[in-house]
């Protein structure tokens, strides 16, 4: 791990300016990172381009991650930017097999931001950090002129120790392995879309923001040798995360579409807006690929965690159609499931 990255087609960044799509977590984001940013910094720890970088420090395998949070509105049903900033970084470490040991936080604040809003976010961060059992040990604050940012942006940095029993690597994924998901998808992305109010849609829906470490911890305790790969499917959704895996392991992934858990309201919103729940962001779910012989035990592990009753086996890895993700239905229909292109835009006509 962290040594030689699997071969990957070199992406060129030829776009002339930054668009919103470069931040949406789909193909454009990938092009930006792989075509413009990563080549300048090229080094072995960066090469896998996973959500957390791992390296040896004094004989211990360390995972680190940094993540910026920009969200409009700052507060939304089920959470706020502060909780996202803690949970997101805890989760990036968790799916690298590391429990967060410490976090740091950097704030960019807009002049004119009510102090009460900032205090509420700082308290939300403190509560989320307590809940995840991780201290916030340092940080930075900067203020920009009014109109230069949407209230506040938060960046967090996290560090943790990788569980030594694990070898997480896309290249360890084998045909026959199964794909496990911790719960229903799309709650966060649809909640944010509705909370912006532009679409005038209402639903009783909450962001799923939470620490996924309890899932990872239980999974490692149950079948440490059978866990091949994990990811928290945030921007770009499950479809994008699995496409990245398919590309990195060179195998095909078959999703049983009816088995992917989606809440009624998320489906409703997706049907109204012409969106695919597989492309919608999550902030409290884990995707894991585990060995077939561990499938039931791994599923049991996820389900035994509080809030894990919606966990499901949603698909498996096949040797055929390497590099792609295929959806299959019970009546035998198949479709290629692509990465997200750009931002998920409502389709109307």
């Amino acid at each position, binding site marked *: 791990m962290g040594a030689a990255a699997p071969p990957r087609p070199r992406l060129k960044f030829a776009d002339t300016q930054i668009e919103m799509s470069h931040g949406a977590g789909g193909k454009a984001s990938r092009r930006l990172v792989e075509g413009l940013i990563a080549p300048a910094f090229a080094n072995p720890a960066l090469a896998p381009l996973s959500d957390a970088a791992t390296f040896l420090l004094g004989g211990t395998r360390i995972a680190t991650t940094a993540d910026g949070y920009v969200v409009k509105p700052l507060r939304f049903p089920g959470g706020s930017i502060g909780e996202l900033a803690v949970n997101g970084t805890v989760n990036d470490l968790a799916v690298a097999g590391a429990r967060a040991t410490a976090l740091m936080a950097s704030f960019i604040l807009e002049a004119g931001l009510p102090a009460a809003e900032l205090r509420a976010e700082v308290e939300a961060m403190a509560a989320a950090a307590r809940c995840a059992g991780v201290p916030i040990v340092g940080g930075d604050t900067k203020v920009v002129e009014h109109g230069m940012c949407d209230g506040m942006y938060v960046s967090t940095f996290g560090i943790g120790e990788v569980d030594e029993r694990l070898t997480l690597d896309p290249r360890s994924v084998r045909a026959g392995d199964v794909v496990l998901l911790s719960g229903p998808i799309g709650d966060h992305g649809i909640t944010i879309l*509705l909370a912006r109010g532009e*679409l*005038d*849609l*209402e*639903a*009783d*829906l909450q962001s799923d923001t939470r620490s996924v470490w309890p899932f990872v911890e239980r999974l490692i305790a149950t079948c440490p040798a059978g866990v091949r790969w994990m990811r928290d499917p945030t921007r770009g959704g499950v479809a994008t995360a699995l496409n990245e895996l398919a590309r990195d392991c060179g195998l095909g992934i078959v999703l049983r579409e009816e088995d992917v858990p989606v809440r*009624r*309201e998320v*489906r*409703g*919103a997706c*049907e*109204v807006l*012409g969106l695919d729940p597989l492309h919608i962001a999550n902030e409290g779910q884990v995707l894991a690929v585990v060995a077939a012989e561990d499938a039931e035990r791994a599923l049991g592990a996820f389900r035994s965690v509080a809030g894990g009753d919606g966990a499901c086996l949603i698909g498996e890895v096949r040797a055929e159609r390497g590099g792609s993700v295929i959806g299959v239905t019970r009546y035998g229909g198949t479709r290629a499931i692509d990465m997200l292109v750009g931002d998920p835009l409502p*389709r*109307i*006509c």
Partner: protein
Amino acid sequence: MCLAIPGQVVELVPEQPALVKVDVGGVRRNVNVGLFEPGEIGLGDWVLIHVGFALSRVSESEARDQLRMLGALGEDELAMEEVRGYTFAADAERR
């Protein structure tokens, strides 16, 4: 070409008679019913929604008939012939 979806009228908006609140799978939105006569769309009705407008009222009996007919396709050949007869009879009636 045009994304439209059935939803149920769950609330009338008294101060705006052209609007009703429609629920699609637990997602609610105000929808304009100005393409219908006043009072033609009532509470509990199912309507087809497109860009914030109700285009059509869903007929439950037609939906049930369709499913029943398609289900009958799976039965034996004789029953299937009956279904075909039924389809064409229904067509003739409608014209």
